[in-house]
């Protein structure tokens, strides 16, 4: 994988509006953003209602994903172009999720909703009607998703990249600064983790930084060993999906997993090691 295989710009997306075989999908942190205006012809996937199991803490299962995509009119052969707000935060999560269930042709709009808005491009409130399909998902690709025991075993062996803000990493905050802080679990980070806040991978307009800048950020400045396998985590696995996208899809690192249990799981486990303060 490389940048040109996975990222498209706004001009390209504008030319694809209404094109057969391409489905533009908004997945936003603010799940009401789509209703106020979206890229013409785009449909919406709600990262919480549509992609999370309503009872257990887990994703919708294979059948659930098949039902969702069939209802939204997405076929196995369609090219899915994802975009969202806040540097494509949740769109990158949805990208990872589509890959997890084996969708072949997935692209991300570089800069996402933010770049589109800052460019003053057209937004529509029309909700397109799409014919239902019969979507078939693959089993989850275990090579993309890390579970807790694997993460504990990776301490000191693999790269652990904590992509939360420095204050969350150090244990001073338990959630991003735009959210309330009350939480039950302990603060801190997984020992040996490097702290590279996810948003450092993005320019101010939401586009991804250049390959050279990204390599310098992770390898040279943070000390992520590109010769080792990597697990990325954050608080609930969405910001780290963005970093998974950078390392695996843009920079082409071969073995990168997203730990979606992330700090809300790890920081609540009994008996696991936790490190406080700045990184070592």
């Amino acid at each position, binding site marked *: 994988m490389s940048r040109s295989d996975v990222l498209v710009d706004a001009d390209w997306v504008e030319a694809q509006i209404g094109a057969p075989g391409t489905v533009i999908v908004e997945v936003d942190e603010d799940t*009401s953003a789509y209703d106020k205006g979206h890229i013409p012809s785009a449909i919406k996937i709600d990262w*919480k209602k549509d992609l999370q199991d309503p009872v257990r803490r887990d994703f919708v299962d294979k059948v659930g994903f098949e039902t969702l995509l069939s209802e939204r009119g997405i076929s196995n052969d369609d090219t899915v172009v994802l975009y969202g707000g806040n540097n494509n935060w949740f769109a990158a999560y949805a990208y990872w999720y589509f890959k997890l269930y084996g969708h072949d042709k997935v692209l991300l709009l570089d800069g996402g909703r933010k770049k589109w808005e*800052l460019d003053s491009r057209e937004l529509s409130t029309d909700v397109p009607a799409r014919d239902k399909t019969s979507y078939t998902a693959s089993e989850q690709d275990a090579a993309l998703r890390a579970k807790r025991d694997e993460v504990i075993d990776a301490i000191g062996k693999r790269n652990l990249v904590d992509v939360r803000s420095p204050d969350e990493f150090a244990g001073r905050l338990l959630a991003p600064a735009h959210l*309330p802080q009350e939480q039950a679990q302990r603060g801190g980070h997984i020992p040996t983790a490097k702290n590279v806040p996810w*948003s450092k991978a993005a320019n101010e307009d939401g586009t991804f930084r250049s390959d050279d800048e990204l390599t310098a950020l992770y390898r040279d400045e943070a000390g992520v060993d590109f010769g080792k396998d990597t697990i990325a985590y954050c608080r609930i696995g969405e910001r780290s999906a963005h970093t998974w996208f950078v390392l695996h899809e843009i920079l082409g690192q071969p073995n990168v997993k997203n730990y979606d249990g992330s700090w809300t799981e790890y920081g609540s486990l009994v008996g696991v090691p936790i490190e406080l303060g700045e990184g070592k």
Partner: protein
Amino acid sequence: MSNDSCGAPAGGVTISKDKSSKEAVIEGQVLRGGAPVSPGYARLLGTGDEFVAEVPLGEDGGFRFFAAPGEWTLRVLAPGQVRLEQEVTADIGQVTKVEFLV
């Protein structure tokens, strides 16, 4: 918005009254000629321009952050190359109000 998410609505999460005394809140509004600016974005930056958080402006041009106490930089982005900045101080139990005029 439940708290097991990272999602925040445009304008930021509403403050719950029983929690506000424990939070260091920074909130404000972006106006152009008295009218709210939206769409647009408010970014919270720490020391050395370190990005910490961002929210899309609400329909009232509003934004809200739950920061750690200390010094922060707020930056506003909006269509038409708008890019404004202010320095603010957040304290626990305080709601620091900021207004941006485009």
